[in-house]
């Protein structure tokens, strides 16, 4: 049985506010014997379960066995959830949509600019959570400062920054991207891309890196998790939380601090060197990224962070598999040289045979996976249901526990919820929901 379900049933009057669970349980009241489902509207507060007292149960006049009153067996198809009411919310001139992702600092949500009708993403930072992260506030300030200056097609653009002093929240409005490279990798078979696709992303990463290094910015945390993709397959480098701007007048690129992700750290940081060349750190981590994209593995692996850093520090990488071909193999070994001085610069990589050549077409290009059961292959804006709710009839979707579990069982792939509902009205409502979507063609285009 789904653990979430257990919690829902066993909890007493009011549930703790769990923000992960977007669904509220309308009512659970369906013994095995009865063929009907009951749905009671108007629970006193959202996110709470309405419990019926004995009198009410008697009123329902169910032919229940007295022995069965203690433990009901509830069929998963008989637990009906109602999707949370989509209440349209505006922050500044932006209409809020669904959650795209979540990090330690807060959430990332989709938004729609109500003036330009551009899709945007917003990173919501909570002061309270930020204080708990070491260097959290400084990192955010630095990220904002850097992103304000940077403007390149392969670097994420910061559109707007808003503060809400009452809620102690900060909103960073950024370009909208549909997916993270990391998620795509994890969803694809073998956790790797065909060479053609990896080549496409890697050349874009190089363009972005060349620009960043040209502006004297060292990212220091290049990894698939920090590379986003837009709808037209443009790669965007994001997360400048640990990036560093070099002094404009120093001819070298020496850095003193490194705080990126362990698996992507070069030996000099793993060994705890006092100072190191900044740009070569990015070269190393893009090397690891390329290795990861093409093989689905990491050049260094370890059971835990210490083992991993030790392995990196010793510097014996797993050699690139020969299946990759000689050109890519040579590039990878060159980029993952232990001595930073021997690693190539971005320009040298750009001139490398593998980067210059067009890899042959291979079947099986991976696409960006839909995020959840309610998003679709076309990545339609999640703001639209909120707008529909605001301007048209109130529409609600019903689905059962079984659907939910089926969805999760299939690894998040989308199966149109086939909610077998007892009342015909809700199916009708669902249809109206879809038809009213069609009335907003302009929103779909954005």
């Amino acid at each position, binding site marked *: 049985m789904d653990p979430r379900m257990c919690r829902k049933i066993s909890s007493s009057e009011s549930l703790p506010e769990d923000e992960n669970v977007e669904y509220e349980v309308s009512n659970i009241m369906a013994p095995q014997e009865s063929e009907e489902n009951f749905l009671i509207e108007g629970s006193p507060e959202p996110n709470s379960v309405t419990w019926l007292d004995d009198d009410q149960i008697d009123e329902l006049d169910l032919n229940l066995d007295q022995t069965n009153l203690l433990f009901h067996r509830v069929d998963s198809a008989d637990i009906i959830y109602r999707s949370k009411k989509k209440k349209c919310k505006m922050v500044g001139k932006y209409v809020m949509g669904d959650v795209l992702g979540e990090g330690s600092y807060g959430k990332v949500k989709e938004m729609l600019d109500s003036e330009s009708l551009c899709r945007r993403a917003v990173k919501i930072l909570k002061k309270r959570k930020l204080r708990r992260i070491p260097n959290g506030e400084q990192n955010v300030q630095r990220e904002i400062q850097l992103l304000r200056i940077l403007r390149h097609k392969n670097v994420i653009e910061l559109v707007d920054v808003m503060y809400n002093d009452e809620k102690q929240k900060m909103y960073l409005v950024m370009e909208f991207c549909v997916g993270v490279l990391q998620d795509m990798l994890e969803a694809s078979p073998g956790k790797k891309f065909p060479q053609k696709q990896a080549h496409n992303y890697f050349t874009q990463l190089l363009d972005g890196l*060349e620009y960043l290094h*040209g*502006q*004297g910015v060292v990212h220091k945390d290049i990894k698939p998790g920090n590379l986003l993709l837009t709808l037209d397959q443009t790669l965007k480098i994001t997360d400048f939380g640990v990036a560093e701007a070099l002094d*404009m*007048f120093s*001819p070298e690129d020496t850095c003193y601090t490194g705080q990126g992700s362990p698996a992507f750290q070069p030996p000099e940081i793993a060994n705890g060197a006092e100072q190191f060349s900044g740009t070569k750190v990015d070269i190393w981590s893009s090397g690891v990224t390329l290795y990861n994209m093409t093989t689905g593995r990491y050049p260094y692996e370890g059971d835990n962070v210490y083992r991993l850093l030790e392995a990196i520090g010793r510097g014996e990488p797993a050699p690139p598999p020969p299946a990759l071909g000689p050109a890519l193999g040579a590039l990878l070994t060159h980029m993952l040289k232990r001595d930073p001085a021997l690693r190539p610069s971005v320009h040298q990589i750009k001139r490398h045979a593998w980067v210059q*050549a067009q890899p042959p077409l291979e079947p099986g290009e991976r696409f960006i996976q839909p995020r959840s059961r309610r998003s679709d292959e076309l990545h339609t804006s999640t703001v639209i249901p909120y707008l529909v709710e605001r301007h048209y009839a109130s529409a609600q979707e019903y689905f059962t526990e079984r659907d939910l579990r089926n969805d999760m069982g299939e690894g998040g792939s989308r199966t149109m919820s086939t909610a077998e509902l007892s009342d015909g009205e809700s199916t009708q409502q669902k249809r109206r929901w879809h038809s009213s979507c069609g009335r907003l063609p302009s929103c779909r285009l954005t």
Partner: protein
Amino acid sequence: MPLFGKSQKSPAELVRSLKDAVTALERGDKKAEKAQEDVSKNLVLIKNMLYGTSDAEPQTDIIVAQLAQELYNTNLLLLLIQNLSRIDFEGKKDVAQVFNNVLRRQIGTRSPTVEYICTKPEILFTLMSGYEHQEIASNCGTMLRECARYEALAKIMLYSDDFYNFFRYVEVSTFDIASDAFSTFKELLTRHKMLCAEFLEANYDKVFSHYQRLLNSENYVTRRQSLKLLGELLLDRHNFSIMTRYITNPDNLKLMMNMLKEKSRNIQFEAFHVFKVCVIN
């Protein structure tokens, strides 16, 4: 396919008939009109071969390779560009499309067309002088920018004497030509960072004496654009030594301070970017 009977022509024939038509056009006798028609027709056929049409796929690699080989052998690309002003409007666009497609063609890591143009730099110089003729300027511009993407070709253009003509082209009175020329100019100076850094360092005096004229130009757009580009160039770390050299000259600081006094806010803003570099040091 009966509708496209003509596309059955082999690439060699197609190129030959196009060449005949272009030479007839060049002679410019009475049959010029007929020749122009032929040129446009053949160009459309070649374009369809490379790009395909709405109901026909592009031709196979072998045919395209043959076509490219014929184009090199007959020197047709140069001929077409030289006579671009005589070809009709649609034809000019077709020439640009065919040129760009052939240029992008790759065999493994090699780009044969780039190698071919390296041996025939006249093509580039003819394209660059295209900015002098209003009617072909924008077509030449698209072809030039495509060329500038390749380091070898960009190098030829940068180190040629014709490059300094750009300082004139960006100031011509026709706005669209001037801005087209400026975007090509910018592309050349910013696309290949290392190449540009080397070039600027080697030709510092010559380039910046020309550049000074742009910064003092009467034309508001030129002044603003060139100031913006200067800021970008100096702030790029690849051009570190150029920046140090630029800011050691007190005249430049004086110029920037005068720019800060300008009426236009945008110029003030761009000048500040350069000014801050001078002052921080």
